[in-house]
């Protein structure tokens, strides 16, 4: 019974990891790749680590799995935010189909204000 559960968790975890990889290939710009990746990687890894914990059923493995899940859940969102943000600020283009870019509008407005200040 436990083996079946381990198997199901590993399969589901591997599927989410596959989705993360597919997202990188299929999504058309950096923000969307990061968005897709952050969510599926954390779920995928959590499921895989839960499978290991259930398989080994040792306190040492379980506690390390929990610590690893916590670290991933703390760091992945920060990293994907920083990667998306710095790509945008360095001028990496958004996908053509993007409906609105209110960040670009605000940066443009701030730049114009700055120029006006310099004139004075």
């Amino acid at each position, binding site marked *: 019974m436990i083996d079946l559960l381990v198997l199901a968790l590993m399969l589901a975890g591997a599927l989410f990891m596959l*989705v993360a990889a597919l997202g990188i290939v299929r999504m058309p710009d950096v*923000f*969307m790749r990061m968005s897709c990746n952050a969510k599926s990687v954390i779920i995928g890894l959590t499921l895989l680590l839960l499978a290991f914990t259930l398989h080994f059923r040792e306190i040492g493995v379980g506690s390390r799995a929990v610590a690893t899940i916590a670290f991933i859940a703390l760091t992945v*969102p920060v990293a994907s935010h920083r990667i998306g943000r710095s790509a*945008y600020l360095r001028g990496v283009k958004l996908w053509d189909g993007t409906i609105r870019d209110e*960040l670009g509008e*605000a940066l443009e407005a701030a730049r114009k204000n700055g120029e006006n200040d310099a004139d004075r």
Partner: protein
Amino acid sequence: MPTADLERTPPWSWREASTRLAFLTGLWLLLTGADAGSWVIGGPAVLLATLLSLRLRSPVAWRWRPAGLLRFVPYFLWHSLRGGLDVTRRALHPRLPIAPALVYHTLRLPPGPSRVFLANTINLLPGTLSAELQDSRLTVHMLDAALVNVMELQRLETRVADLFAVSLE
């Protein structure tokens, strides 16, 4: 960013430093299974991490409300699972159903760690990624800029306010 009316964190004390040192030492013990040889790396790493964590302390005092945490955890787990399923559907769909946008959201949370926490949390929820946080303005990248997703962001903000025991403006 923090304004005068916010409660400031007092300067660090030896007591706080030793609590952090003990916590990080425990974490290293946990990760390495108390292997004596690992302290060659672990000793300096734990010391550096303690110093860094004291240096990077939030200038604004904050706490989590235990009841708020109990309410937040199931909400968060459920919605991150939804987030994962949502991107799975989009990434696997032959027509790639996306209508992305970078949208401004004016935060109602007070300045401080609750804002940063919100910006990080939305990265794990369905279809959203924080792009820029400046004062009370959070720019969010949405895979689908539908109104329901904007409303979900407002609901998340209410949850975070409940967790940090702060009131929304």
